[in-house]
């Protein structure tokens, strides 16, 4: 039974004023795979290194299970870490790399060899046990790094972008393997990545960080469908959510169209001041018939689906939108098309926080009343 708790954990690097990780509160359940995701500089790696004990805490606490480990040395935390560059000991063989931690713990030689053999078998590393890391391919090195963590049977696995040095195909394959392995071993895992696809596909829950502050921690589908703010909405999903700046009054106006929104009650449109951001996932925007006139810029045909990039005039500036259409799609760059909303429409306040969402629909506005509704 191993949980991990960040309790207002804060890290301020010497010589800086802004915290790299700012009062992080996070509960990670027993056996859970939690993904920390965010752009570079968001503090995700720092948060992981704080859990590893490689970065001290400036405030708050971190607990593994019931034990406060804030001031415990890394080697006494019962954790195993997989590094981005694998950090294999170059002068040791694969077997010695995997057995290193056991040797430090004083595990008898015979048991050590047995556990290394067993782990190597699971990871298909048996033929390579006597090789040095430099004679292995990238994927094999990655597996040795995983094996080095697995063989220890620690309380928590920490993984710092362990797949980012693999090529795309291998990364997708290894992703599945890591998830299966983690599920089978049932060991609490904290996984850091900057890749939102990796985060969404791997995590039981995903914690999105920005500038050292936790934005939202939720299951992948919840993050996707109910983002708490504009940052999460924009960061999760590929292509990113379309964001359209609109005036804060009813009816919402996009170019010369009105957005009819059967929104929930908590969508407050108080009128007058400020602007709102209207968010549309690419799959919620249909290219073809519709009241909103636009021109196709480029068409990206992925085979199974097609990304259509369109441009239109909105609030006196060029607005670029992207739509995800099912294949086949017949439009070409330069075509004039009509747009319609066919899914959830999100609304975000001036400060980026989510106001709510509802099913939206575009309607051709009265030409005379465009942008001047009562």
């Amino acid at each position: 039974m191993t949980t991990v708790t960040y309790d207002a954990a804060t890290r301020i690097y010497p010589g800086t004023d802004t915290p790299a990780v700012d009062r992080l509160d996070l509960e990670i359940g027993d056996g859970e795979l939690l993904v920390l995701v965010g752009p570079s500089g968001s503090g995700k790696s720092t948060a992981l290194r704080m859990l590893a004990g490689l970065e001290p805490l400036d405030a708050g606490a971190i607990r593994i299970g019931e034990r406060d480990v804030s001031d415990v040395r890394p080697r006494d935390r019962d954790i195993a870490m997989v590094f981005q560059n694998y950090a294999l000991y170059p002068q040791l063989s694969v077997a010695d790399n995997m057995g290193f931690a056991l040797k430090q713990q004083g595990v008898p030689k015979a048991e050590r060899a047995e556990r290394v053999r067993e782990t190597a078998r699971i990871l298909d590393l048996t033929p390579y046990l006597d090789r040095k890391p430099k004679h292995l391919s990238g994927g094999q090195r990655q597996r040795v790094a995983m094996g080095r963590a697995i063989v220890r049977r620690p309380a928590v696995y920490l993984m710092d972008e362990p797949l980012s040095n693999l090529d795309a195909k291998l990364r997708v394959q290894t992703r599945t393997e890591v998830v299966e392995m983690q599920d089978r071993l049932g060991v609490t895992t904290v996984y850091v990545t900057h890749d939102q696809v990796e985060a969404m596909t791997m995590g039981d829950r995903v914690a999105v960080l920005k500038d050292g502050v936790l934005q939202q921690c939720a299951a992948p589908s919840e993050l996707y469908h109910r983002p708490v703010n504009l940052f999460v909405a924009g960061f999760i999903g590929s292509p990113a959510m379309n964001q359209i700046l609109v005036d804060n009054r009813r009816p919402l106006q996009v170019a010369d169209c009105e957005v009819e929104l059967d929104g929930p009650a908590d969508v407050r449109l108080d009128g007058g001041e400020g602007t709102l951001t209207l968010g549309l996932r690419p799959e919620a925007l249909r290219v073809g018939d519709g009241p909103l006139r636009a021109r196709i810029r480029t068409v990206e045909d992925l085979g199974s689906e097609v990304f259509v990039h369109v441009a239109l005039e909105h609030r006196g500036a060029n607005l670029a939108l992207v739509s995800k259409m099912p294949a086949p799609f017949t439009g070409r760059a330069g075509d004039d098309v009509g747009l319609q909303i066919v899914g959830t429409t999100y609304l975000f306040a001036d400060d980026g926080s989510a106001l709510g969402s509802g099913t939206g629909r575009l309607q051709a506005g009265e030409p005379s009343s465009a942008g001047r509704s009562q």
Partner: protein
Amino acid sequence: MNDERAVVGERRWVNAVFGLMAWVLGLIFFFPVFWMVLNSFKTEADANTSPKLFFDPTLDRYRDVTESAGGVLSFSQAFTNSAVIVLVSTLIVLALAIPAAYALAIRPVHKWRDVLFFFISTKFLPVVASILPLWILARNFGLLNTRTVLVILYTGMNLPLAVWMLRSFFQEIPRELIEAAEIDGANLRGQLTSIILPMAAPGIAATALLCVVFAWNEFFYAVQLNPVSGSTVPIWVTSNVSTRGDFLAKLSAASVLACLPVVIAGWLAQKRMIRGLAMGAIK
């Protein structure tokens, strides 16, 4: 296409000129050494007449210089002294420099830049300026004409260099490896013996070799503080200079013998040393 070819052709031509210059310079540097080796196989008469490339080689001069004469510093004595002083001082240097380099590279101490500068600043003073106080100190502690005084001085002389070099080598070790070892449960000793020292081995070898070379060749301290019984090889070489009679061939033979250990050590460590120097401090 033609332009490209012309550029490549020009580069090849430039490279050839640089290559030739390198060879000429190399030969110029090597020539005195070559001449010394030749002289060491000559008779004194041959060595002191107009330069001769062809002569009857003889090993007599080597026999002359290695034969011990009563009351004079003997070859074997000087070599033993040098070997002991050089090895002991180098071992002490490594024993002190490795922890210092760790503290400067891997876990930088507070104000590590100042510390680093302090180390090297001890090399700013001309050796001559320090010799009088050193001599007085050595006399007061009863260390004149002992091996101990040279061990101490050579340790002090090589320590800054060794710290600087080892620091750069330690910095080359990826930080993640040390962190991985730390998480894997290795304590400081484990990290040192299983990760840091094996990985820095070429650098440590290069550092040790430089210390050996500098200590082996040192003359000034040796001649001032230890000119008699505990004397080292460079002093023994100069003892073959005499005021009467010719000594050029003998001196050459002695010099060749003095150079040999360093040359052999350098040749053995060549690969590692060059890698070490290229990667290390002196870049």
